[in-house]
């Protein structure tokens, strides 16, 4: 059942003339309703002669349009933080000297999210009881009672209050500027809302009542009555939730939904990947078909569908996308990707041996660029390794398999997935994946591509290894230039603080073929190894001496 909300609003200018308040509501349909929900916003402009009203209007319109165009892969909180920063920055630039409050609530699925600065207020009214959700950002001093300490345009930086609440059918969300709430006892709100009737009229009545009570400021109120909540799962799954995996494992020649399976190109514990002909669109595609046992439970199925959902929303040449199929075409659970001539780097390594510096640098740059795009969208891949990187005929690399990706917009269930040999040390201690752990995986991948060995050896899943000093790649392949080596070594630093912190750091150095500044020089490694060798020889000599002594004495 989709979210169903009835809305109404009213705004009365105050005694001082031009109305400096502004309010707006957005009630989209279908996909936007499912992902971003219904959004309400009010703003109260401060500084009459200085364009407070214009700022209020710009802020409300800006934040609502920004909300609906923000990436779906970002969490609501991240979007709103970003949007409030934008609004503040634009206010300082376009309306210097003016300020305004800004209070916004979005309701989607079964939740609402609030983002707020200023002294306008937001309430949640449930069963006749009104609870204020927003915090009044005014000085709590009798003399300073109506001085804002947080507002759009007030300062260079801004910190919005963010809050989340569960919503139920029958709940009301009410937003109001101080022209309304200064003369309104929230306790009476519940009773007034129960009155019924068209919401616009109800809102009108509320602001008029506020005026009658002697409040001569601009008064604005926005009402939203939640008639039906959405289903959080369906909010992003859509129709695909009814799809099920089919039991007999797929074989060459299978035909379904207008696809004909041509050849299997990969398989894992949880799924198989097939080259197929798309009869309907007359093209070749790649299908990822889950193993039924791996999608038996609803949560597992949701994971597979999340993988598809995510793939549909990433568009970067360095990431293999997911194709949007005609709605209703699929009768079973799988998803399609465009056919690419890409070969997994893993296979290239076994076929052709270690890569040279040029090829590795190319790979590093392509993958780094892809990771940067993913991170910008609030997505962490979490499984970077040669098996998940494809190289096409033109020598371009693409990341594939978003199966364990972490998406900002989805609540984190905990758990630390990945492939053990490519996981950063802090992940084994239970840390959360971040850019630095992705960099580590990329570093290990580069190391492996250059030397066909793993810097810390093959790490088994379910173990907690100790990370000592890795031998520099030049130990295995002396042709590796020292600048590349220094970059790889910094990327695979066990101490996360000493590693690259953001992907672009690594990318810039690769591009410019530049050496890492604070690199640990290779000479030190060689010296350590040399000392060890001499120690070994000395020990051997001592042992031999002792044995000889014993032999002599025994004679």
């Amino acid at each position: 059942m989709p979210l169903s909300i009835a809305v109404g609003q009213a705004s009365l200018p105050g005694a001082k003339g031009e109305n400096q308040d502004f309010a707006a509501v957005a009630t989209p349909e279908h996909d936007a309703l499912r992902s971003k929900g219904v959004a309400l916003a009010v703003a109260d402009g401060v500084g009459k002669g200085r364009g407070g009203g214009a700022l209020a209007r710009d802020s409300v319109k800006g934040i609502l349009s920004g909300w609906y165009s923000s990436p779906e892969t970002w969490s609501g909180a991240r979007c709103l933080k970003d949007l409030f920063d934008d609004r503040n920055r634009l206010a300082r630039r376009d309306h210097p000297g003016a300020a305004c409050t800004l209070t916004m609530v979005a309701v989607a699925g079964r939740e609402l999210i609030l983002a707020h600065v200023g002294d306008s207020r937001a309430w949640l009214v449930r069963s006749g009881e009104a609870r204020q959700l927003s915090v009044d950002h005014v000085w709590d001093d009798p003399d300073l009672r109506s001085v804002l300490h947080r507002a759009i345009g007030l300062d260079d930086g801004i910190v919005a209050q963010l809050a989340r609440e569960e919503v139920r059918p029958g709940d009301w969300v009410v937003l109001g500027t101080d022209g309304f709430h200064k003369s309104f006892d929230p306790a009476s709100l519940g009773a007034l809302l129960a009155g019924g009737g068209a919401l616009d009229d109800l809102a009108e009545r509320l602001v008029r009542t506020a005026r009658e009570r002697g409040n001569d400021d601009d008064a604005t109120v926005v009402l939203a009555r939640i008639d039906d909540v959405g289903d959080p799962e369906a909010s992003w799954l859509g129709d695909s939730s009814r799809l099920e995996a089919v039991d007999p494992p797929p074989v060459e020649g299978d035909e379904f939904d207008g696809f004909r399976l041509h050849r299997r190109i990969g398989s894992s514990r949880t799924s198989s990947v097939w080259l197929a002909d798309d009869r309907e669109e007359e093209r070749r595609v790649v299908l990822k078909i889950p193993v039924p046992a791996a999608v038996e439970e609803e949560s597992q199925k949701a994971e597979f569908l999340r993988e598809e959902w995510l793939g549909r929303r990433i568009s970067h040449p360095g990431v293999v996308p997911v194709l949007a199929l005609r709605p209703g075409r699929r009768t079973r659970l799988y998803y399609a990707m465009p056919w690419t001539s890409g070969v997994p780097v893993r296979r290239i390594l076994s076929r052709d041996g270690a890569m040279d510096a040029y090829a590795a640098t190319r790979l590093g740059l392509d993958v780094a660029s892809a990771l940067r795009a993913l991170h910008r969208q609030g997505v962490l891949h979490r499984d970077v390794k040669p098996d998940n990187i494809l190289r096409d005929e033109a020598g371009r690399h693409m990341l594939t398999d978003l199966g364990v990706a972490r998406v900002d917009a989805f609540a984190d269930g905990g758990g630390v997935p990945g492939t053990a040999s490519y996981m950063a040390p802090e992940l084994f201690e239970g840390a959360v994946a971040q850019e630095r752990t992705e960099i580590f995986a990329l570093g290990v991948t580069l190391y492996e591509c250059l030397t066909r060995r793993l810097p810390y050896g093959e790490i088994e899943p379910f173990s907690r290894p100790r990370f000592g000093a890795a031998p520099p790649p030049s130990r295995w392949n002396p042709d590796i230039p020292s600048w590349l080596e220094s970059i790889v070594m910094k990327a695979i630093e066990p101490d996360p603080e000493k590693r690259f912190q953001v992907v672009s750091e690594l990318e810039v150095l690769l591009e410019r073929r530049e050496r890492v500044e604070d690199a640990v020089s290779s000479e030190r490694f060689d010296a350590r190894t040399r000392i060890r060798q001499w120690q070994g020889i000395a020990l051997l000599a001592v042992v031999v001496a002792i044995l000889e002594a014993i032999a002599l004495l025994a004679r």
Partner: protein
Amino acid sequence: MQIKEFMKAGHPPTLFASFLYFDISFMIWVLLGPLGVAIAKDLDLDPSQKGFMVALPYLSGAFARFFMGMAVDRIGAKATGIVGQVLVIGGLSWAWIGGIHTLSQVHVLGLFLGIAGASFAVSLPLASRWYPPEAQGLAMGIAGAGNSGTVFSALFAPLLAKHLGWNAVFGVALIPALLTLLAFVWLAKDAPDQPPPKTLRQYGKVLKDKDTWWFMGFYSVTFGGFSGLAASLVIYFNAQFGVDPVHAGYLAAGCVLAGSVARPIGGRVADRFGGIRSLQTIYLVVAVSLALVAVFSQNIALTLVFFVTGMLGLGMGNGSVFQLIPQRFRKEIGLLTGLVGMAGGLGGFYLATSLGVAKQVTGTYATGFYVFVGLAVLAFLGVLGVKRRWRSTWGSPLNTTARI
């Protein structure tokens, strides 16, 4: 997980009671092994009858584990433990008071002793359910350290048998059995959150996973080896080298102690280097050790040395398998411990019986050992396969609830 956090996280009295219950139960479970020489003399048993006699509790234990596992889910671990212990006490009392005069009576007693072996299915869930997932491995390790009960049997049973007669030993065993029952009733408590009972369908699902079968196979070799040897060592030292039961008991106790102590070490090694990699080395060590036992079957000193190395390997193998299980089968851990435990019991039954049969049919125990060596080699090859299959992505993202 730090020790302090661990102690606060769960329920120490229950953990202690589980450990005690498991320890004493294990002691009782393997009782026939050390007493085997004395019983065989009085009842005039041949080698294969001897082998079967000490092996039977493992067989009945394997099945009892399954049923007790089901009972644990339905009536709670504490209640099941009490019922099991009462049955065991009943069996011991019957054996002591009525006396054992025929082989069939020994077999009946063996069946009852098997119930003590199923204590595994009670102790582990009882203790671990109090703890959060990340600590369950450690909790099970502590409760499972009750393996050491076998050492007590080997140390004391022959000595008691010599002075009081083997029948009286069953009576003596009643003392710790009753004390444990009391402590158990008083200290142990079922954890508040009980997972729902496991259905046969769930067992079916978990049996479809290749890894389940491999783990069962791995544990049937490591635990089968450990328990099979624990049951057979006294008889072996006596029959092969003519050592008297009491001293054979001491030698056996030493070997079993090595195996017991090695279990947590195996867990640690698995943690550091990976359980699969550890098992690789372990199976080779076990295979070589037991092969050398067969080769040097005339030299008691070397035999002892290689039994110890073999037991160290087997003990470590037990620890490694159980380090892997809670992590690999996070959600189905109860199902796995039940199945794997059963497989271990069957392995012990097989080894003890096969040694007896080998001696009976060929005149030496060597064949029995060599076949087991073959199984260890098979396990080694199996590990290589698992290692290859496990070189992939693990863990699910667990994030499928969209938020606004």
